[in-house]
């Protein structure tokens, strides 16, 4: 077996193709552009199609169509592009059409956009956040499975670091298996043929009395499916030294790798510090966070934004433990979220200050 040095964007693209993705459409924007470029290289040789759409609006629309026809399909952009896609993502949840949306974000300012959704209506999208290229293959396979299983868009969150970190990968010769189209997929049968199907955000069947769709029944069905999805997805986490930790860091994506390095340094200095890394951002792993922080004095949330995931952490522990934000807020001139203040040294130093404060508070009679 041979190895090759590839950038994270290519790992992301390769992971999608391996997960069975055969249609991809997107519009270039840093740091997503290279994912689109690699999909354009990888898809045609396996019989797939990649389209450089005229905008993100058209990209997600094309993906909607490909997914409705039973193809494993995906689109992507940065958070800015996902803003444009929100209408389609929201409507796709009502139409029961699953596809994957890759957000190669600038920093982590899109946490709310991903986990709450920026579109209209009473919907949710599962969100997965790999911490680096080595985790992408598994996460992407899970994303496509979830999209198909729940017939719902699934968001995979990366960032500039994930896109542009190069790693050695083993070149696998095995051909990925493309699952057959689901039975509900449109196959071109037209009305009157007896085999026609309907996929619409208004419902999957019209009433026979000629008054159109039964929206109440449809929305009830969608709500039920959403609730089953929320309960049916087991959120995943990674735990590091949480068993005896007085202070537990919570971080996701690349930020968790900085947090993990800081935790190891602080441990070597004798501090009882641990880390929880949510891999699934929605449904948020509230039970795991609560369990892993049961004995903690403080929870410190480290995210590359002004504080978004911290809300979910607070909801998870419901006031049983103080939660503070120690954000690695990126203010670099590139605006790509690779600020000089996102460093192991900075985070370690912030954590030392926090630990000092806690010690001082504890020593006050």
């Amino acid at each position, binding site marked *: 077996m041979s*190895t090759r*040095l590839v950038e994270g964007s290519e790992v992301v693209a390769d992971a999608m193709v391996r997960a069975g993705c055969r249609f991809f459409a997107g519009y270039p924007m840093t740091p997503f552009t290279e994912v689109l470029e690699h999909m354009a290289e990888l898809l045609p040789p396996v019989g797939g199609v990649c389209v450089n759409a005229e905008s993100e609006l058209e990209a997600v629309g094309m993906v909607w169509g490909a997914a409705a026809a039973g193809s494993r399909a995906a689109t992507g952009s940065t958070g800015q592009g996902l803003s444009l896609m929100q209408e389609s993502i929201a409507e796709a949840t009502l139409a029961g059409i699953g596809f994957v949306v890759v957000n190669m974000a600038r920093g982590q300012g899109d946490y709310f956009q991903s986990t709450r959704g920026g579109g209209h209506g009473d919907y949710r999208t599962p969100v997965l956040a790999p911490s680096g290229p*080595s985790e992408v293959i598994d996460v992407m396979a899970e994303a496509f499975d979830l999209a198909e299983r729940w017939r719902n868009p699934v968001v995979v969150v990366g960032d500039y*670091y994930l896109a*542009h*970190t*190069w*790693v*050695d990968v083993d070149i696998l010769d095995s051909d990925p298996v493309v699952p057959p189209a689901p039975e509900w997929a449109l196959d071109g049968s037209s009305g009157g043929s007896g085999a026609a199907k309907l996929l619409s955000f208004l419902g999957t069947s019209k009433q026979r009395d000629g008054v159109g769709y039964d929206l109440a029944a449809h929305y009830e069905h969608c709500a039920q499916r959403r609730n089953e999805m929320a309960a049916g997805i087991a959120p995943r986490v990674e735990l590091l030294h949480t068993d005896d930790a007085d202070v537990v860091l919570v971080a996701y994506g*690349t930020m968790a*790798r*900085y947090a*993990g*390095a*800081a935790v190891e*340094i602080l441990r070597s200095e004798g501090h009882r510090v641990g880390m929880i890394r949510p891999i699934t951002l929605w449904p948020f792993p509230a039970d795991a966070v609560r369990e892993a922080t049961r004995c903690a004095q403080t929870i410190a949330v480290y995210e590359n934004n002004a504080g978004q995931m911290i809300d979910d952490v607070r909801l998870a522990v419901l006031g049983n433990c103080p939660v503070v934000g120690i954000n690695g807020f990126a203010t670099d001139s*590139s605006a790509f979220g*690779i600020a*000089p203040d*996102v*460093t*192991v*040294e900075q985070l*370690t130093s912030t954590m030392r200050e926090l630990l000092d404060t806690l010690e001082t508070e504890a020593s006050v009679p």
Partner: protein
Amino acid sequence: MQREVVFTGIGGQGVQLAARTLAEAAMADRRRVQLFASYGGMMRGGNSDSFLVISDGPITAPPVVGSAWAAAILHHEHAGELWPKLGAESIAAVNSSVVDPARCPVEPGFDLVEIPALDIATELGSPVAASLVLVGALVARTNLVSADALLDSAASVLPSYRASAAAANRAALQAGLDLGEVTHPAWDLVAT
């Protein structure tokens, strides 16, 4: 075991090529690698940094490492944030043809090796390959990668439209490898 190598210089000095070359060589030695580049928008004159991790096992280090075992300093302009990453066990190869000694730590606390990389590369007729002389010299002192793997990566790292530069780049790496003996072995056993 894991070794972190940080590279710094200004755009156009070959910082990224040097880092990629060392990464490819480490892979040929059957080690795992992770490489993150950070560079400004300018083609020349902006910062160009690279963070390479070479390991015997899976790598969990963040893209921008907090501490480094080795450094290749092509230029002093943006080196300020890298010096503190080096510790007592570290070695830094400095491009003494260019780097201002006044911009280096007075008491480094690590092994600082001065290599006139640009002068050597210029003598070879290929001043753009100075970064490869420096990497060759770093490998000569450390055995971070095997010499054969390093020399072979001169060609494998280049895109096809740059293939004509492979011979000169290989000569630059060899010139660096010829400078000195191993003083600072990176691994317990040299990769086979």
